[in-house]
């Protein structure tokens, strides 16, 4: 059950430790319970504990709580300035000039968490360039951002 989660996390060049006995799956959606919740959950629940993400046709789509768990590791991270923070939340990619700091491996094709300067996770993306590249360009392609909550609210 944990395989899609691990495969996803690996793309940040890190790993997380989750107690597999507390992981549950329902309709391709994954949840992490705690010892207490495990006593109460029955088979027909819709949502339980901490939502971690779901597998769709295109692959695994993480939840924001999962990205926060990954953010506590040494995963690759880019820290963006305030203007870029909001542009990213609005669905835009990140230009090099908006990146204030990078930690971990900044290599083309790798996944990276996108953080604001307070160290809060705003979403994740994929490096389009290596950190050694000098020219000004899109550095990180937006794959998921917090603005998704607003887009979901609009749908409802």
């Amino acid at each position, binding site marked *: 059950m944990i395989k899609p989660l691990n495969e996803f996390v690996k793309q940040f060049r890190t790993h997380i430790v989750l107690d597999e006995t507390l992981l549950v799956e329902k309709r391709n959606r994954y949840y992490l319970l705690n010892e207490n919740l495990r006593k*109460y959950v*029955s088979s*027909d629940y819709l*949502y339980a*504990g901490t939502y971690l993400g779901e597998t769709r046709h295109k692959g695994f789509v993480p*939840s924001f*709580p999962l990205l*926060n768990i990954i953010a506590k590791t040494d995963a690759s991270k880019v820290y963006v300035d305030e203007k870029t923070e909001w542009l990213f939340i609005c669905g835009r990619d990140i230009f090099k000039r908006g990146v204030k700091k990078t930690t971990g491996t900044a290599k083309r094709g790798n996944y990276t968490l996108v953080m604001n300067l307070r160290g809060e996770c705003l979403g994740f993306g994929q490096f389009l360039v290596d950190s050694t590249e000098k020219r000004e360009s899109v550095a990180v392609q937006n794959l998921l951002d917090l603005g998704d909550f*607003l887009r979901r609210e609009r749908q*409802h």
Partner: protein
Amino acid sequence: MSGREFFIRRYANLGWNYEDVRASQAVRVNTVNAEREEVVERLEQRGIELEKIVFLQDGYWVRKSRFSVGATTEYLLGLYSIQEAAAQIPAELFTKLEHKEVLDACAAPGGKTVQLANLMRNTGVIMALDVGEQRLQALGNQLERCRVQNTIVYKLDARKAMRLQQKFDRILLDVPCSGNFAADKNWFRRRTLADVERNARVQRQILEEAAKVLKDDGEIVYSTCSLEPEEDELNIDWAIKTLNLKTENIEYCGQKALTNVFGRNLDSSVSKARRIWPDKTQGFFVAKLKRRDHA
């Protein structure tokens, strides 16, 4: 029996003179995720002015905002929720929520569920029920955004809560109701007394089921955003007389609930509940109930 004049006359008979008011916007800080002062300061830096609501633990009036308070990084990070001031009252009325088994019987879209989880510091368990598919999705989104960890959601009608085979320490019944004009500008056009009576029937069924799954020393908080006594005082009077429940005193904003409704005398202990006529908040009614045979 419907229409603006009909309802305004009813309110006058209940002792309140109609005023055309709209509730002020309010937010509630999710203190599990952030300190109150930090959120206030961060929003002030964005040009959003907040003012503490004196009768609430974590609530603030939105005094000034250049843009929607639902479109900030802080909101999306779950540091606060947009929640009407009166709607923040019910969850605060429970005593000692941490480590308790809590039922949120009509939970979607989840504002009060998140508030309960916050007051519980994510301990214990909340079983959150609702029926509409879209409303349940909205509930899931709220739980994810606000990083709630102690909630299990079931698609289940509150009138079938016995199916959970569980008794609860605390039960929140924020029952589906007819609403009120301060929260819906088309209210007078849309509502009839028949709607009110239909809703009141469903509410009594929910109360009846809740009494069955309440632990002996448990608490029920019943709330509506309806001004109609059929959904408020008359239902609490019925619960006292039929379900072996008693009311607990509520010291909050608003006024004592009515004990005489259109000439009909109710149990005097109904007055321990609270009726809030629309002003800075929307209209609201809240009652706290316990088993009669328990201290």
